[in-house]
């Protein structure tokens, strides 16, 4: 059973032929894949490590970030990968309205990330236009705590929007390379 599943996966990879996929989204994904590949190779040698930080999101953004790893989006083919420690990271991908209870943890994670580093605020809450910004318990956006390079709005942003945002990061990062 396992062998047949493995062989099927090799012969008919979903990543390229996405059954039932929206053709427009697939085209956009293909275009993104080409652009992101070139930009990443040029600036970062085809490798960009991302440390994700949930600074108090409702977890919807995490669901879609996790979806980037499934066979349809296959984030790692772009040289983008999630790492377990900020010490290994080039990029911090931050979600949530930054709850006051998470502010210090976000600051410390940022400090623990080596230079050069970029911060991506993903989702309306992280961008600063979410529903929680007026709460006694929230700071109200990532840029109020650490500098933000790229903003990806959406509630939550779709995996395709997240990929598009990471592409724009590649363009931003050109000016910050040491």
């Amino acid at each position, binding site marked *: 059973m396992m062998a047949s599943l493995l062989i099927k996966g090799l012969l008919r990879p979903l990543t390229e032929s996405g059954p039932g996929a929206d053709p427009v989204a697939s085209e956009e994904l293909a275009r993104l894949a080409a652009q992101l590949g070139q930009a990443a190779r040029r600036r970062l040698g085809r490798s960009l490590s991302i440390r994700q*930080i949930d600074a108090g*999101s*409702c977890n*919807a953004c995490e669901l879609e970030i996790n979806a980037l790893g499934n066979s349809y989006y296959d984030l790692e083919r772009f040289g983008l990968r999630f790492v377990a420690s900020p010490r290994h990271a080039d990029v911090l991908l931050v979600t949530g309205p930054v709850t006051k209870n998470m502010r210090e*943890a976000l600051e410390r994670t940022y400090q623990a990330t080596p230079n050069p580093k970029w911060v991506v605020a993903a989702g309306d809450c992280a961008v600063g236009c979410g529903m929680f910004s007026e709460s006694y*318990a*929230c700071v109200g956006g990532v840029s109020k705590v650490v500098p933000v390079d790229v903003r990806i709005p959406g509630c939550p942003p*779709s995996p395709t929007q997240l990929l598009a945002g990471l592409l724009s990061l590649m363009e931003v990062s050109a000016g910050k390379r040491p």
Partner: protein
Amino acid sequence: MYDAVSLGELDLVALWGEPGSVHVAVRQATDGAIFTYLCPDGSYPSLGQRHAPAIRLERALRDLVGLDPKGLPDARPWLDHDQWGVRSPLGAIKPAETAPPYCFLPVEGEGLHEIPVGPVHAGVIEPGHFRFTVNGETIVRLEQRLGYAHKGTASLMAGAPMDVAARLCGRISGDSTVAYAYAFALAVEAATRTPAPERALWLRALMAELERLANHLGDIGAICNDASFSILHAHTGVLREQVLRASDAAFGHRLMMDRIVPGGVSQEMDEGGRKAIAGMVGRVRKVFPDLVEIYDETNSLQDRMVGTGIVRPEWVQRFAAGGIVGRAAGRSFDARHWAGYAPYDRLPFEAPVFTEGDVNARVWVRIREVEQSLALIDRLLAEAPAGAVRGEFDPAAFSGGPEGAALVESFRGDVFLWVRLGPEGRLAACHFRDPSWFQWPLLEAAVEGNIVADFPLCNKSFNCAYSGHDG
């Protein structure tokens, strides 16, 4: 009432409060009730001192409203991390005075050491802190500290216009956005005695089953992935994505946020959407049995799952722990049956129950519920009546502060939600209790005596909410 709860004759459903009163929701086999204790002096007798499941609820109530549970053995805060700048934000708001540092429970013994984990975790998951005390490889004690995702959602909902409150409610826990919006709509409709149109009831249940299906498929794979068995993770991830795309095609949002509203649903499903869901169900049905067979017949995987992280039946009874955690340890409670909200009162389905209480049993509950949800989706697609999906509903038409409550089965367990309406169509007050409140404490108990390397398996098999719990 305290006697009945502590003796196990009544299940504790929720405990919350407002300035001057404490509310306790309880249930038994066929009905439920909400008791209110008036406490103008700001204190009330602690239920937690006699019934452990209430301890965290009372600590949270003290943090948020400032009501003092007399006799509560744990004086520490729970959601308040001394960062808000104020005390009792839902009560008589006071500026924050200096608080003593938070102390974890003391652990003494030869050869013990501590492993602090979080709030920032190694994976793409929500924030929380775990303090392990270990002896070699073996966990002697786990103590959780939660509240990092506390957003003050209840305070934002209080006084908000009804549509804003509904949107906030859909962001209490993103993975359960349908279930929370569902509970909110039912509670508001119970308060105003205005049922939604028949078709809306069926579409709500359809969304709830799609949400359950997507989460269970994701969780089954993620649990296996934590045992480094990534092939199942890859394949269930594909199925999960297909569910999300079908949901998007039918309701215009992958997670179906803001689709259930008081008075009905905000979006009709057209024929294209119906076909997208039917096609997805066919594909999942074709692939899923093979994945289950691989799960069940891979010895190295079974070795990690069977007998790991055991939750005892008496614990789930005492904590009235619902959802997967309860049904994997012999407690059959399912809010769809108990509350019998339409259309579940007309749809036959089983709540699968296992008794082993280990990681494997929690996987099997999910497997059986995937099958049940697929069958339910078939019926819901086939039998949903035609008609309007949204009724005439004007929240401003109701005066006198009517109250309503609802219990809805999310993929994780029963979500309790209570509302009181205010003037001008606004929400006056709201309380929500995530199923995780009665599941998180059992995770502390279940990992005792397990090795540290099995914690991710145990944790993922519970999949408790952080944001849903923290509010």
